[in-house]
């Protein structure tokens, strides 16, 4: 197998792993975490697939400015889905404790605001920041390097670069 084919395979592998990892982070932090805190049922719906597609596209188009925009879109989209599932923080619980039926209303909009402020905004800023840093450092002229097949170490370093 030629070195070029190996590099293409490595590129596809990096793109796929990066997309999946980012989706898992988004899903864990924005959908599963608030559901666990507010004791709501956790459901994995087609949103996971939507976010996965957006994230893989963002990873594949990493050299274009659309990539941070897509990442921001993924975060905003999953935040809105999560907020909508949690009814924007206004929750009602129905628990039967002993003989007392508790219908329990709770205003948890602070959690929704905290989620937005600590996750969505910093992640969007980080996406744009790392894109512009990559652009600024990626256009420096370097001497040509010999074409070699990518090792697993190279792939992991590329993902965590």
């Amino acid at each position: 197998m030629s070195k070029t084919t190996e590099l293409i395979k490595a590129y596809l592998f990096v793109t796929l792993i990066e997309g999946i990892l980012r989706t898992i982070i988004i899903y864990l932090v924005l959908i599963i975490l608030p559901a666990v805190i507010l004791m709501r049922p956790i459901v994995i719906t087609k949103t996971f697939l939507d976010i996965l597609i957006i994230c893989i596209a963002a990873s594949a188009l990493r050299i274009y400015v659309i990539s941070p925009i897509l990442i921001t879109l993924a975060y905003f989209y999953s935040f809105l889905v999560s907020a909508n599932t949690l009814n924007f923080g206004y929750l009602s619980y129905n628990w039967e404790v002993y003989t007392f039926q508790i219908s329990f209303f709770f205003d948890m909009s602070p959690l929704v605001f905290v989620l937005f402020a600590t996750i969505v905004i910093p992640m969007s800023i980080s996406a744009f920041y790392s894109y512009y840093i990559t652009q600024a450092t990626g256009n420096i002229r370097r001497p040509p390097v010999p074409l070699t097949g990518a090792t697993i170490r190279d792939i992991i370093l590329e993902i965590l670069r």
Partner: protein
Amino acid sequence: MTLRHEVLISFLSVFIIFLLFTPLTLFLQDLAKGHIYFKFQHKGNEVLLILVNEGTSYLSDIIYNATAQDIYNNLYMKTGKIDSFKKGDNITIKIPLKIPNAVIIKVDLKISAKINGLYRFDFEVKRE
């Protein structure tokens, strides 16, 4: 694009969120497991609402507004303040009735309290 920043930010934000909302999680777990519960008693010319705390979380600066409605649509209200409600405490709220032994069809308790001394939350407990 780098994932390193995103992994770091997500760790940090999960830490912050857990730090901020652990008291709330504890409180909700206490309610769900029945460690904090409400009892309703109807004795002669008064309705008793008893709040019992056997859980780990505590409430402070409680302002409550209890209402009871009888079968003739009379509405009885009682408001009050309680300093703290910690493990082992029982609070009895007495609502006097005009018509003794009237059938109570609805009890509504609105509570505004600080959970674990950190933040104030309003919630409402109903029984119909």
